[in-house]
């Protein structure tokens, strides 16, 4: 653990002290802690764990003692009481507390259970949150690393990627970055002996290692001289690939590997941290030409100078970017964006995981309120004991301390069990999440985590332990041994607790309900294509063996024919991009439209090239016109295109009037000479980016018109998915044994994957809100039962003078439901207030969806009525004579 994070943990622990104490001594203690830690390390006085244990015990004891002295200074008179040795007192308290626990197993068990439930959820969620947002990135001064990108609102794209000419100018003219680099990821067929394998390759500018601050573990990084157009073919291996394929032999340097049929010389091996950039196996120089407008396809990475802020850097880059407009007019539309690395890659998860953390926090709070209620009720039954001890001269602080020890003991036991449970539960979650986050995100345990659990437990103990303890110690003087009636104030206190629990539970239920409804609706959205039973995978034809369009077309024709003739294959089709698997954007102009005005939105269009039969295989519905046939896209015919509903509506005045119009790729600049393509059909929109994302304008062209080397295959197969894949592999290798299949998945998998995060979040929030409801209702039940017990004499008297069963029951139920109604009222208001926050995780549901509110209130009142009915029935069945005779 770094010096800074250790200090952070300590600072967090110190929050346990009263603020007044902290203000005076906190910073001195922190500094001393740092010095102690260094000495401990230098002198090797003991293990790290031993050090932290002592530190934590010191803080826990010190903070508790400090709170108590504050409390006793307030409640005790000024007469000095001789203090006995705290340590032996403490042990005595623990022994006494343990005896109490053993004597009252039900009470202790309840607290233990509540505490474990509360801590378990927090443990699990904090582990996730910690891994995603708190753990430092594995680079020196990682705070200075920024993701660089370009944005183009007029194209309706948040991030378009960095164009190389922009980057070159940014790097040359900026004054706020220490260094800057760009890279892109692509696939390559890696060949050696045997069938080739699809691997991922990073193409980066020569300064990427410098920006990250990493050194090759072997050899060297490529140089600026090598990162030029037509430079030498050199490559670095990533550490994992080196270990897996080359058994970590140092002799790999100078050897050559084959990528897409080209030989690259290995010049170095990257350190493990390089996987932060990409999971790629090989890195090669980008070798891009700044003189060519190469499109926006690069990812930028910059290291700020320590003095620069993000705002300054953005202003700096923006002015450089604008300065290029004269020679590069498109920079009027694009502008640079800078975001801290973590925000860029994990920002979308921040809200969801934050909400989950808040949800488990609420569950813990409700559990604490229940424990406090239990303790309040219990303090009444212990009033005689307390008054006796007080009368015998025990100082009030001693009684408070003893009660606190009892709470702390139970809390610690519960927390230990709870964190174990939480670890176990989050383990499953972590496994499920592994491949959904960048590889550098890990969920290992660390000291931050230990600090969190300890701090949470101590905090919870103070929350539920201190109030009853103080109250109990104060009340004792009033209680006279024997029969005591709960004071009105105490019952009101219990009522407030329960109403608060109900309010909190309702907020959680609303959030859970909204999110569940949202996911349910998303699951029922028609994606516009056939999901079930469709398998997809990708192929890339290496340029060495398929040098031109004719070769590729020939392969594609034969391949499709062969696939379709294979037993089991119901239908097969090719496409550059299948749904849910990427984006390729072009700009289109419509014949006859005026050139776009400056700043006028020009949304980028999703462009796909597909083989005939695509629409039948994928189940995409045709709205007007016709689909492609085998003749479309041949050299002797007109170029044709099919547009989607959104394109037809926004650019061509609807489906019917779209047919026969002509469009062309281009931005509509006055001097351009467009190659016009005729619209022959309009199809329904397909949820190409996932059912939770809006669709943009999109078009299809015949694959023959745009023969690509990289394409995807969709297969409908009579049989299992595994059989579909093995059949496809066999057919492929019969045609070209060196061609690897990659990105293999079924459409249902792709769909599930696109919704996984939402589903998981929804399930978790739903579970937590159910637990919250259960706890709140249990609290309600407890308080009403307790109150009935306390008032049995009053009820008996009333029944003796003629009150009916129904009246008694009604009174008890009314009392309980008043609490519920009050809590629900507050909860509804609170839910409305947090609605704006929750809106961020919802797609198809308004945060004020009345159905959810009504449903939640209905469930709450139903369950609460049951919790009230049981004690009410007991009250009505009281035998007046028995209760009165007890007096």
């Amino acid at each position, binding site marked *: 653990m770094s010096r800074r994070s250790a200090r952070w943990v300590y600072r967090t622990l110190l929050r346990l002290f009263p603020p007044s104490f902290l203000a005076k*001594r906190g910073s001195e203690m922190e*500094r001393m802690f740092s010095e102690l830690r260094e*000495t401990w390390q230098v002198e090797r006085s003991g293990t790290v764990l031993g050090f932290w244990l002592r*530190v934590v015990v*010191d803080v826990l004891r*010190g*903070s508790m003692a400090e709170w108590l002295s504050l409390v006793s200074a307030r409640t005790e008179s000024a007469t000095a009481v001789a203090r006995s040795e705290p340590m032996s007192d403490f042990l005595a308290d623990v022994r006494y507390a343990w005896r109490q626990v053993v004597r009252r197993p039900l009470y202790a068990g309840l607290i233990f259970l509540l505490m474990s439930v509360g801590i378990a959820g927090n443990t699990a969620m904090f582990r996730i949150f910690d891994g995603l947002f708190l753990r430092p990135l594995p680079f020196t001064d990682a705070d200075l690393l920024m993701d660089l990108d370009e944005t183009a609102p007029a194209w309706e794209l948040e991030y378009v990627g960095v164009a190389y000419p922009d980057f070159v100018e940014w790097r040359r003219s900026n004054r706020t970055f220490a260094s800057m680099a760009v890279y892109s990821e692509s696939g390559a067929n890696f060949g050696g002996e045997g069938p080739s394998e699809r691997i991922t390759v990073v193409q980066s500018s020569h300064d990427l290692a410098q920006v990250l601050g990493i050194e090759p573990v072997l050899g060297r990084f490529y140089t600026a001289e090598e990162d030029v157009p037509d430079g030498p073919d050199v490559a670095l291996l990533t550490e994992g690939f080196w270990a897996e394929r080359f058994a970590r032999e140092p002799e790999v340097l100078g050897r050559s590997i084959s990528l897409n049929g080209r030989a690259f010389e290995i010049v170095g091996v990257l350190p493990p941290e390089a996987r932060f950039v990409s999971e790629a196996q090989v890195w090669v120089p980008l070798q891009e030409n700044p003189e060519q407008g190469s499109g926006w396809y690069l990812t930028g990475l910059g290291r700020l100078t320590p003095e620069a802020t993000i705002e300054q850097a953005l202003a700096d880059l923006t002015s450089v970017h604008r300065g290029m407009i004269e020679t590069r007019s498109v920079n009027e539309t694009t502008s640079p964006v800078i975001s801290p690395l973590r925000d860029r890659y994990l920002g979308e998860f921040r809200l969801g995981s934050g909400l989950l953390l808040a949800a488990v926090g609420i569950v813990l709070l409700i559990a604490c309120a229940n424990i406090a209620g239990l303790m309040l009720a219990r303090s009444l039954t212990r009033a005689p004991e307390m008054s006796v001890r007080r009368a015998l001269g025990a100082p009030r602080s001693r009684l408070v301390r003893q009660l606190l020890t009892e709470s702390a003991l139970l809390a610690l036991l519960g927390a230990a069990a709870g964190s174990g449970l939480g670890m176990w539960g989050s383990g499953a979650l972590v496994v499920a999440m592994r491949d959904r986050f960048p590889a550098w995100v890990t969920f290992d345990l660390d000291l931050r985590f230990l600090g969190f659990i300890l701090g949470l437990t101590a905090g919870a103990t103070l929350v539920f332990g201190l109030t009853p303890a103080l109250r109990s110690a104060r009340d004792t003087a009033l209680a006279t041994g024997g029969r005591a009636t709960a004071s009105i104030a105490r019952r009101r206190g219990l009522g407030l607790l329960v109403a608060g629990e109900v309010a909190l539970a309702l907020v959680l239920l609303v959030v859970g309900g909204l999110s569940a409804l949202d996911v349910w609706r998303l699951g029922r959205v028609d994606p516009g294509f056939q999901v079930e039973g469709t398998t997809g995978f990708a192929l890339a034809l290496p340029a060495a063996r398929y040098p031109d369009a004719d070769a590729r077309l020939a392969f594609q024709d034969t391949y499709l024919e062969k696939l379709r003739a294979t037993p089991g294959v119901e239908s097969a089709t090719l496409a550059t991009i299948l749904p849910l698997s990427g984006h390729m954007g072009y700009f289109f102009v419509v014949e006859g439209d005026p050139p776009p005005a400056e700043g006028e939105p020009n949304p980028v269009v999703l462009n796909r090239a597909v083989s005939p039969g695509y629409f039948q295989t994928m189940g995409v519905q045709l709205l007007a016109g016709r689909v492609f046939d085998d003749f479309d896209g041949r050299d002797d015919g007109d170029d044709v295109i099919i547009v989607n509903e959104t394109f037809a509506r926004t650019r061509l005045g609807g489906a019917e009037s779209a047919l026969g119009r002509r469009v062309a790729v281009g931005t509509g600049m006055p001097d351009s000479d467009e190659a016009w393509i005729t619209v022959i059909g309009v199809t329904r929109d397909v949820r190409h980016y996932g059912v939770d994302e809006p669709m943009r304008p999109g078009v299809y062209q015949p694959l023959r018109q745009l023969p690509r080397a990289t394409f995807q295959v969709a297969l409908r197969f009579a049989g299992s998915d595994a059989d579909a894949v093995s059949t496809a592999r066999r057919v492929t290798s019969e045609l070209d044994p060196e061609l690897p299949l990659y990105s293999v998945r079924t459409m249902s998998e792709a769909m599930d994957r696109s919704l996984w995060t939402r589903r998981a979040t929804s399930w978790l929030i739903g579970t937590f809100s159910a637990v919250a409801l259960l706890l709140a209702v249990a609290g309600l039940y407890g308080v009403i039962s307790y109150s009935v017990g306390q008032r049995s004499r009053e009820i008996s008297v009333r029944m003796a003078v003629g009150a009916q069963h129904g009246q008694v029951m009604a009174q008890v139920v009314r009392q309980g439901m008043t609490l519920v109604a009050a809590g629900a009222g507050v909860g509804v208001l609170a839910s409305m207030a947090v609605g704006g926050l929750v809106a961020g995780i919802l797609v198809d549901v308004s945060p004020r969806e009345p159905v959810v509110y009504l449903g939640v209130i209905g469930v709450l009142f139903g369950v609460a009525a049951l919790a009230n009915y049981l004690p009410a029935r007991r009250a009505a069945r009281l035998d007046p004579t028995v209760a009165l005779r007890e007096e």
Partner: protein
Amino acid sequence: MIPSPLKPQWFQILLALAAQPLHGYAIQRAVLAQTDDQMRLWPAMLYRSLGTLEDEGLIETVPTPAEEPTDERRLYYALTDAGRDRLRQETELLARWVRAAEAELL
């Protein structure tokens, strides 16, 4: 007025400050040295003790001594006159007890 005898850690802190004013970490080191590594004061314990001793007027905070090489400002603690008197009394008390114990045992 804190009753006698002083708690061991209080006594050791006063003793550590007898020679010169020290800051918190230095007090910890001094106490460790003068107790043959037997008493290791952790921050919360130390600073709570310092608080009590300060409230009782036995020690006071003083500015950073000029000869210290550090350019950081930090709190130094020094014995007050009352603190010095008290340390003397306590030492005499302990000495008396030790003498009594020795007379008994030897």
